[in-house]
């Protein structure tokens, strides 16, 4: 079966430390004022003292039907055969259609290059056999990435074992970040 790269994010293991954001900035030279990934907080919910707060990391969802790709007038935004959504810099004219089209607000205009910019799933690291920088550094092992079609991958094993949700399912983009909110006591061994 074809490779389908994506993320599983275990929100219950995230402490909102933002190490993933800083690691991504360092790895990908993301300019100040912009970020390729994020940790969103629900804010403190409820009334004192019955309160709770949840954290939801995210980045480009590497969608099955990416609107950023269909609106791109030059073919710079592409969905690769392995599922990773990329921007071919030499073809990008900086029109920003894709930035507007993304329902997850995962793209920005890079002021240094004038091109659209976003998470590449650390493609350059994957090619060296390394995990994406955000996954590598995550203290809570909240972020996991891998081949969603490979039953032996960590992400597939997690999806098989726990209930998952995706963001903005109704939009029909087919996002490839699967969120697990339940406690996950052990990260399975896998690829």
């Amino acid at each position, binding site marked *: 079966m074809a*490779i389908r*790269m994506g993320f599983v994010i275990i929100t*219950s*293991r995230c*402490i*909102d*430390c*933002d*190490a993933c*954001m*800083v*690691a991504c*900035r*360092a*790895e*990908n*030279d993301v300019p*100040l*004022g912009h*970020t390729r990934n994020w940790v969103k907080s629900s*804010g*403190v*919910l409820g009334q*004192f*003292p019955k*309160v709770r*707060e949840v954290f939801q990391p995210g980045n480009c969802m590497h969608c099955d039907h990416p609107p950023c790709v269909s609106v791109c007038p030059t073919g710079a935004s592409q969905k*690769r*055969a392995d599922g*990773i959504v*990329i*921007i*071919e*810099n030499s073809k*990008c004219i900086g029109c920003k259609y894709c930035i507007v089209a993304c329902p997850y607000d995962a793209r920005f205009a*890079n002021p*240094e*290059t004038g*091109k659209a*910019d976003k998470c*590449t799933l650390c493609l*350059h690291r*994957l*090619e*060296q*056999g*390394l*995990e994406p*920088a955000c996954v590598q*550094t*995550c*203290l809570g092992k909240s972020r996991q990435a*891998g*081949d969603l079609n*490979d039953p032996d991958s*960590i992400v597939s094993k997690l999806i098989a074992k726990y209930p998952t949700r995706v963001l903005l399912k109704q939009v029909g983009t087919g996002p490839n970040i699967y969120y697990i909110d339940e*406690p996950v*006591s052990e990260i399975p061994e*896998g*690829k």
Partner: protein
Amino acid sequence: MSKVYTWDQLFSRRQFLKGTVATAALGATAGIGLLEPEASMGLSNSPPQSPAKGVKYVTTICEQCVWRCGVIAKVENGVIKTLEGNPNHPNNLGKLCPRGNAGIEAMYSPDRIKFPLIRAGARGSGLWRKASWDEALSYTAEQMNKIKDKYGAKAMMFNSTDNLSQPFFESLLKAYGTPNYGTQRSLCFNSMTTGFLYTYGTPQPGTDYSHCKYMIFTGRNLAEGISNNETQEMIDMVARGVKVVVLDPRFSKTASKATEWLPVRPGADSAFFLAMINVIVAEKLYDKGFVEKYTQGFADLVTEVQEYTPEWAEKKCEISATTIQRIARDFAAAAPAAIAHPNWRTSNFVNSFQTERAIAVLNALVGNWAQPGGLIPDQEMSTAKLGVLSHPPFPLAQGIRLDGVPWKYPMVPLAYGVIQTMRDNILTGKPYEAKGWLISRQNPVLSIPERQKTINALMKLDFVVVIDIQASDTAYYADVILPESYYLERYDGLVPIKNKIFIRQPVIEPLYDTKSSLMIYKELAEKLGLGEFLPYKDELDLLSRQIKPFPVSLEKLKSDGHYEVENFKEDHSKDFEFQTSSGKIEISSSIMAQMNKKAVPTWNEPPRPEVDHYYLLTGKTAQHTQMFTQNNRWLLEVFPVNRAWLHTSVANKIGVKTEDDVVLESEVGKITIKAYVTEGIRPDCIFMVGGFGHVSKGLKSAYGLGASDSALHKTVTDPISGGSSLSETFVTVSKA
């Protein structure tokens, strides 16, 4: 006469080296084919074995906080590209926190101090001239010797905060002969360390998270005060479904992960623990065998806690009696795999020593010492011993200490000290006048309560020299700044952790005319005529002598990043030999009894704010380290400014929303700060993250951002532990 520069003129070139190399990886190109299946997710968290041309990996130790995590730096054509956690390092197991990931930014920051500076205008004017190392060190030594000749060595104070080369700083101060040593400890954890020292004979026992079934945190906020491996263990513990109770007046991120958050009244956590002890004693839930064999003073405790019923405690700590009862029973049932955590920065109230003593005793009652899931005895016995350098005996320090240890604070260990009293006595001139201050990598202007007093103290002295990597608020008021090389550019002393010995080593050569503190201390010692006390030629000479007892070369240590001692056996033979006066766990403290103080944990009523006043609480955020990282622009991206947490009812009363400016005013100062309105704090408390509100114009990104708690805090000291009682400051709040 050399030219005089302002700070801006000296360091105006807005260069950011990283940006000039960079950007090769921006966006992926389509030319790269489909990933090979086996390469798709290698799941290796170490760097590739055969790096590309121009790329090298160097293993070293982080210094973005004091936790000493292992780091693997990736260098491309001489520029450090990324930092990753070293999977072989027990302090972080391959992971880095946001601060660790951001280490590169400060290294290439235009705000680095790039050469020695000598003040060229009034103190604090920001006028400097560039000096050579020889001139700066000679001038410093001349001033220090002048002070010693005229007023005695005691007139010189030496301050430093936890760092790898601290033992050599201590050699310098002992060689100079001053008794005045200032650390950060009284602003941090003196109540915890003294509380456990006078109970178990060890100041900081470990905690076995991996087997623990019931954890109570009361001042250990691992999600925001990240101690990397412990934070990871906390997350795992929560994920395993372990019962985690957090006592905190504020809904911290740790509280958000816990199974139960108890918004305790500040300072009254003491009552909570005394009542837990009351229940455990009354219902005979303690470990009778353990108590009889290893402790002393149980009978006195029984008498003392009789009145500390859950109903009594409810009125004090505002946690219901039934909750206290339930937690006491469940905690005892989970024991010995149950821990009331010793915590960390716990110097909050004058009674915090008693709180820590109650915590220490509660652990003893359930017999969790050296048990799976309980407290772990001192690790020192099971740590590899480095080679030492021989030097002549140190001269005897002449005179009593300015910080009141031990003449005012007899129970505070000399190595901890009471820094806020040192500052106060610079101003009072009692018991004698201080004249000079050597400060290495410490920022008392922002750390000690009553910032203005600390600035006044600096202004009063004849000579101030600061060693730092950046123009901290304290460096800004110095006469000489000796620029230390960044942690990615230098060696420090070796670090043994159990059976492994780790090295901090330069990832790249220093970018500027800076030196390691090892060499600054040594060369200063030579200029002072004290070179024989720091008897090493250079860093490599020192390190090779530290590693000498082991069959490994320095080259091998450098390339591996650590050395693992072979056939190393952990020594647990002395786990139950308690280094207390009685040799037992002291439920009743012999030393407290000698001082004619109540020897068992007892209740001291903490003060409450008056009408329209609020407790001022301060604490950490995961994205910054004390007052050290606010100039780091990568960290400002994820935590740009501190805000005052106000309960919704308080915000409504004064008519403010989140992001509105509010004025906080205490007896000693006034600040303006943005509000953060939340249900996650007690209505009688206001919280702010410390470390912002820098006054140094040399920190261009941090200058003027947010506000400093040091401008509000009163100076209140616990006479037993010497801890600065930081939460005994009350403030009013109004719309700005």
